């Protein structure tokens, strides 16, 4: 690079040799120093000596052109060799070197961000309500005419969401029982009230933690699968194909899945309850000097039918939530494979969020109206 400073208002810079990615950064710095340090009114960049010139060198030149123009000065490229010309014909130099071409960091205001978030939350809520309406309609239609339900699909999803989930749900519930039993025992031991560990573990597992854990696992296993499957079909135009073949996609795709979940979740919850109790029993007998029959009797005395009913009602509600959210997120997929991934993630996150909300509401409701 050589600077020619003979007359100040106009400055010429000549570049020569091989310019490539390896020395683009140095070149950029040198040139920037050259054009920003002192006063001149127009800049000529002479490229006649260039032997090799790649895109990074071109980017440097464009950036210098943009900086110069942005400072209100003239800029000219001279001595264009064939290699440079070839590269130039492929790009839109005007646009790339316009003073506004540099990307400005967009400082999004916190308020605007909050507002945007609130709006998208509202839109999301609205979409959910609309989908709940569609799904309810499709469900009702299916029950009026049960032969129209795709039972084969329903059984397939029931097997996948239910039978295939047994090992995981079982293991998690057993561990949950063990942990709860251990924690309860540590406290109760101080008062010699070991036997009440059975009450604590039993009630927590049956009314609350069993259904909650089971449905969070179901959301992770099946809710995500529903979103991924329906999302893929959406992106592949298979959902459009269904519509144009005269099928209602909600009835065809969502009803069997939701039905399958509502069929298997109660079974999973009962199963999870038993394994939770077993966990408590193991700790109680192993560490709390309780007998098996004593523990079981205490559990039987504490856990009323209504407690089990309460757990099942909660679990069934969560199952509906997981099914609805999984299918809805699937139908919301749009465009490309990436959106299927987003749908899947958001199916799980939304489902867990809603499960917790529903749990709070139902717990309060049962508290006020339940035992009366």
């Amino acid at each position, binding site marked *: 690079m050589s600077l020619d400073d003979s007359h100040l208002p106009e400055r010429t810079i000549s570049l020569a040799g091989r310019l490539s990615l390896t020395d683009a950064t140095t070149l950029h710095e040198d040139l920037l120093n050259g054009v920003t340090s002192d006063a001149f009114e127009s800049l000529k960049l002479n490229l006649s000596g260039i032997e090799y010139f790649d895109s990074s060198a071109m980017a440097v030149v464009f950036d210098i052109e943009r900086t110069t123009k942005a400072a209100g000065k003239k800029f000219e490229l001279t001595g264009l060799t064939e290699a440079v010309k070839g590269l130039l014909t492929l790009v839109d130099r005007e646009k790339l070197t316009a003073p506004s071409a540099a990307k400005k960091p967009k400082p999004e205001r916190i308020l605007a961000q909050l507002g945007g978030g609130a709006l998208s939350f509202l839109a999301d809520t609205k979409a959910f309500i609309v989908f709940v309406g569609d799904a309810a309609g499709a469900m009702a239609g299916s029950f009026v005419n049960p032969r129209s339900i795709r039972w084969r699909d329903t059984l397939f999803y029931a097997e996948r969401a239910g039978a295939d989930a047994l090992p995981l749900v079982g293991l998690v519930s057993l561990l949950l029982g063990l942990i709860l039993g251990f924690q309860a025992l540590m406290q109760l031991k101080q008062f010699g009230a070991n036997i009440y560990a059975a009450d604590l573990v039993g009630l927590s597992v049956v009314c609350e933690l069993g259904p909650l854990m089971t449905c969070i696992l179901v959301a992770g296993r099946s809710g995500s699968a529903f979103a991924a*499957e329906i999302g*893929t*079909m959406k992106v*592949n*135009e*298979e959902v*459009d*194909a269904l*519509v*144009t*073949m*005269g*099928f209602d996609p909600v009835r065809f795709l969502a009803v069997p899945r939701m039905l399958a979940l509502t069929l298997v979740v109660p079974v999973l919850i009962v199963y999870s309850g038993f394994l939770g109790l077993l966990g408590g029993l193991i700790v109680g007998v192993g560490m709390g000097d309780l007998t098996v029959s004593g523990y079981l009797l205490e559990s039987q005395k504490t856990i009323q039918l209504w407690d089990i009913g309460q757990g099942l009602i909660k679990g069934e509600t969560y199952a509906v939530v997981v099914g609805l959210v999984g299918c809805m997120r699937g139908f919301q997929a749009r465009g490309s494979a990436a959106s299927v991934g987003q749908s899947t993630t958001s199916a799980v996150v939304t489902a867990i969020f809603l499960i917790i909300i529903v749990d709070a509401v139902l717990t309060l409701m049962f508290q006020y109206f339940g035992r009366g």
Partner: protein
Amino acid sequence: MAEATETKISATNTAPAGKRPVIVQVRDLVVRYGEATILDSVSFEIYQGEIFAILGGSGCGKSTLLRQLMGLEKPAAGNVLIDGDDITAAEGDEQEKILRKIGILFQSGALFGSMTVAENISLRLLEYSDLPQAMIDVIIRMKLSMVGLDNVEDEMPSELSGGMKKRAALARAMAMDPRILFCDEPSSGLDPIGAAELDNLLIQLNRSLGVTIVVVTHDLASISAVAHRAIMLDKSVKNIIAEGKPLDLKEHSDNPLVKNFFNRMAESGVNLKTKSGKEK
């Protein structure tokens, strides 16, 4: 069996003679997505038995228009009459009645991935008829042989090659003997030979069954070889900028936008005259 009735691709596919009844009528169709207007008051007609092409650069609204013709989306204004019935206003049973007259070949094929080829083809037959399984099986094999496939009934779509998928999808689209067949970019994703074979197949179906075919495409060889008539859409005008025989559009249009479209096609190496003879 496909070889026996093979139709050679000629320079142009000539339209069936005589005045024909209108089968699709589009009147003052306006389509908007949010603020953006994509189609602004588009009107045209498609005649029974012809092969009709919808042309235009990418993003000009071809697929959008096709989705309106199939009733997949509702327009902001205007209507689409399929064989006299308005598909934009139809609901429930009436919509079903209209949909039964049309078959669709989607760009990606859109075969249901969780079903075999046979199940894909018979899905609608099982829903709308009480035919015994034996009859359905015969129909499935008939439709498959019509598109030059056999012994793929029990395959899953993922086991088929790209060209076979398109053919199987075509067989599914023809399962209910539709009067109109819509095809979105039929040659996309196929090599030139596969694309030419599919074009042949469309011509054959049109000639032997009289099915009206509506094709969205920007494959120029395809346009000229297959279509009897075409309209061209433009993004800036949001409307039809030309209508007529594909060759006339290419050679005699004064509209710079039309010329531009064909020039760009030519530049990209797809030449109307040489394509069919060129090696891959």
